């Protein structure tokens, strides 16, 4: 295995716009909002940024297909700006570009921005879009809930879990995220809900009800990264470093091959194992302090707990119901409200997760700060659908951890 990037790159500053229905903002204003916080946190000038990456998933309804909107929004100093897209994993993808640039020595300071302006479509949920001329003839363009709901049918069949038990565990996931989001001033949804509400909500894609689904939001999130040495030279003392950054992309085995049972993410298992090795983590259930996972749907979060090797296969639903992932549990998950309540501006989400983990590590998360000092904070950003996806894992921690 490659040597990896553990502790080679430090986060100099981060920022995040308020997520939500930002009717009054264009994408460039959202990017600026995130950037102003990040650049102030980093304590540098715009002219010190050597390169930038921009993550956006729905460029067709959003910013168009290039890095130019970021360069223009921030008036970057004629540096290289690359737009990246990898479905809903685009935010972590932009982070990966910036981190790799610094790790390689090609850049001293690099910027990652994720943005999505989704509330100009005229309807709720993700825009319907093509997946290419050939796919459109032989594939199924269902909705995101429809694609992810299938996890539940397969999970029940594979593990013999009753429909009611699984639905209740899924409800617990969402009730928990709403409770967390209520404490987060930047969250899109700040209302608490009850288990009854979640269980009795209108069906979107069986068995996913309204509260099993995250909405979509407008928003942006930003990271400025550099080497630990430069961070120190700039006066930083509490330095958060990248411990692991891994990406796994489906090659069609799940969709077209044989062996996948439909109840888990093959890619997440691969990416998680590589990330733990890169970070030097051997016992994730006891070493990971908190997680921000891609809870686009309650069932996604639930099975991801298994794919991250935190819950045993077929038992995540029990861990969920036991409160293991609640804010006061052993490994809080979505302590900021997650995609479910912080919101899901697609291209920004991966960076928003890292932003939260960064704040938690530095004790800057306010009302929602985890009681015990976290050591390793993991984020998991997934794009696509269960049978064809991009799964990314970023683990951050304090320098030396």
């Amino acid at each position: 295995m490659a040597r990896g990037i553990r502790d080679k790159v430090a986060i100099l500053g981060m920022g995040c716009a308020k997520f939500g229905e930002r009717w009054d903002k264009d994408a460039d204003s959202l990017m600026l909002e995130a950037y102003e916080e990040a650049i102030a946190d980093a304590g540098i000038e715009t002219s010190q940024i050597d390169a930038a990456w921009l993550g956006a998933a729905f460029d067709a309804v959003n910013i168009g297909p290039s890095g130019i909107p970021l360069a223009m929004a921030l008036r970057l100093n004629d540096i290289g700006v690359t737009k990246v897209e990898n479905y809903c994993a685009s935010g972590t993808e932009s982070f990966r570009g910036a981190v790799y640039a610094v790790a390689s020595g090609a850049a001293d300071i690099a910027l990652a921005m994720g943005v999505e302006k989704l509330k100009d479509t005229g309807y709720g949920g993700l825009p319907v879009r093509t997946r290419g001329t050939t796919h459109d003839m032989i594939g199924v363009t269902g909705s995101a809930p429809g694609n992810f709901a299938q996890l539940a049918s397969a999970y029940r069949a594979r593990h013999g879990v009753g429909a009611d038990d699984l639905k209740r565990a899924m409800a617990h996931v969402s009730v928990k995220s709403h409770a967390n989001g209520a404490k987060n001033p930047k969250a899109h949804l700040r209302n608490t809900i009850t288990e009854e509400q979640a269980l009795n909500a209108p069906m979107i894609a069986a068995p996913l009800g309204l509260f099993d689904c995250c909405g979509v939001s407008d928003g942006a999130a930003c990271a400025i990264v550099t080497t630990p040495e430069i961070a120190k030279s700039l006066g930083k003392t509490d330095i958060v470093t990248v411990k692991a950054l891994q990406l796994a992309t489906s090659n069609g085995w799940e969709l077209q091959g044989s062996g996948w049972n439909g109840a888990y993410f093959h890619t997440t298992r691969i990416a998680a194992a590589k990330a733990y090795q890169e970070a030097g983590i051997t016992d994730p259930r006891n070493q990971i302090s908190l997680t921000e996972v891609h809870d686009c749907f309650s069932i996604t979060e639930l099975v991801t707990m298994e794919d991250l090797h935190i819950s045993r296969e077929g038992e995540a639903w029990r861990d969920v119901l036991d409160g293991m992932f609640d804010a006061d549990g052993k490994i809080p998950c979505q302590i900021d409200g997650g995609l479910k309540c912080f919101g899901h501006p697609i291209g920004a989400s991966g960076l928003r997760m890292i932003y939260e983990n960064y704040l938690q590590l530095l004790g800057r998360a306010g009302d929602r700060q985890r009681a015990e000092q976290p050591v390793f904070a993991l984020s998991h950003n997934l794009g696509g659908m269960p049978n064809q996806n991009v799964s990314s894992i970023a683990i951050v921690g304090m320098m030396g951890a």
Partner: protein
Amino acid sequence: MSGAGIHGFGAYVPVTRLQRSAIHAFNGWFAGGLKGLAKAEKAVSGWDEDPITMAVEAARDLYADGARNADAVTLASTTHVFADRANAGVVKEALNLADTVMTMDAGGSQRCGTSSLIAALDAAAAGRTTLHLAAERTTPKPASEREMTAGDAAAAILVGPGPGLARLIAHHSVAMDFVDHFREAGEGSDYDWEARWVRDEGFAKIAVPALKAALAKAGLDGGRVARLIVPVAVRGIPELLAKSAAIAPEAIADTLGTVIGHAGAAQPTLMLAHALETAKAGDILCLVGFGQGCDILLFEATGAGARPRLGVSGWLARRRESHNYGQYLFHRDLLSLEKGMRAEHDSKTALTALWRNRKAVMALVGGRCTRTGTIQFPKTDVSVNPNDHAIRTQEDYPLADVPARILTYTADALTFSPDPPSCYGNIEFEGGGRMMSEFTDIAPDALEVGTDLRMMFRIKSFDELRGFRRYFWKAAPAH
């Protein structure tokens, strides 16, 4: 030369049976006179069916598990999907027949079903085997008599040299521009003249003499006819023909009017397929086709030959009762509903991509790695087998007739579907191969992991902007 005969037959009847009482419950205030017809049920095809997809099913029913032999494919219909694109050619692709097959569409009259059958029999005398298909999906005006009497169905007859399961004795035709009803090209519904005139001047003076002439040509007495097949929805007409030709009333074939309805130009073929199910050796079958003239065909059953997979009776047993007249209207474009913004998704088909992928799209042909035996859909340059990503080793592997089962599923109420919720999931073929597939002809609450499936050729989506439709295969419950 032993002449021509029928070597196989098959049918297709859509699963949904709309109750005529539901039609009348809605329209009765306006068309109270149709109360007498508001009985029993009619077969209505789904939003994703048309004469092409129904004909494909009828052909598959005919061939069952046997070899798909045919030198030609003809499709008769007065509701052809395409005015300029061979409809029978689409069927040929879906059936994965050889490119050397000749295809031809027949249309223009209720009689086109029997006329194309006669042409096929003539070709058989010259040594050619024809897959004769007929299918109809009409859009009668709401609150019309035709709406009550019409039904959707398709049927298939394999015609070839030799007697097969029913040898042709004789056929006879007359052509006269007797306009009992009409529909100009592009129009959705028919305009009908008075039924009493059609009976007295049409059936009595055109069909009756034709029937007598055919019997005379064959040297047969009417009493020899074991089954008189008169595909006419008007009560009393079959009886009129039987009586005038001295055919026993018991010989009159069931018009299938109470269980399917009248499937237009497909009705003669459909009723013939139905009659062949029970025909005994020596039975004389007399088939009538009426429309701007008359065709009469006389066959003698041999008791031999292949049986269909289900046949008319089998399809009739595969039935789901519906009282949802609104859904029927919407699925026939007779009722405009707000579809929402998600329906605005552009379904433009790249004809270039369709052509180069035609085996995969139209015939569900996947790939099989000649080195490892790995089966996959679609066929790709590099094998999906994680242990051997062999390059360019795949041969064609047709999956359309391979049984499958549900691996994952959902009933999606968010994505646009003309028949929500949209049901789809990952499926696994027996022997290998997987795909994500839409489910059709299934009730959302019937979805279970492991449910047995059978693939069916259906409409995938409509491109309303350009007037095109996309076909692909969907998974339906196997039982």
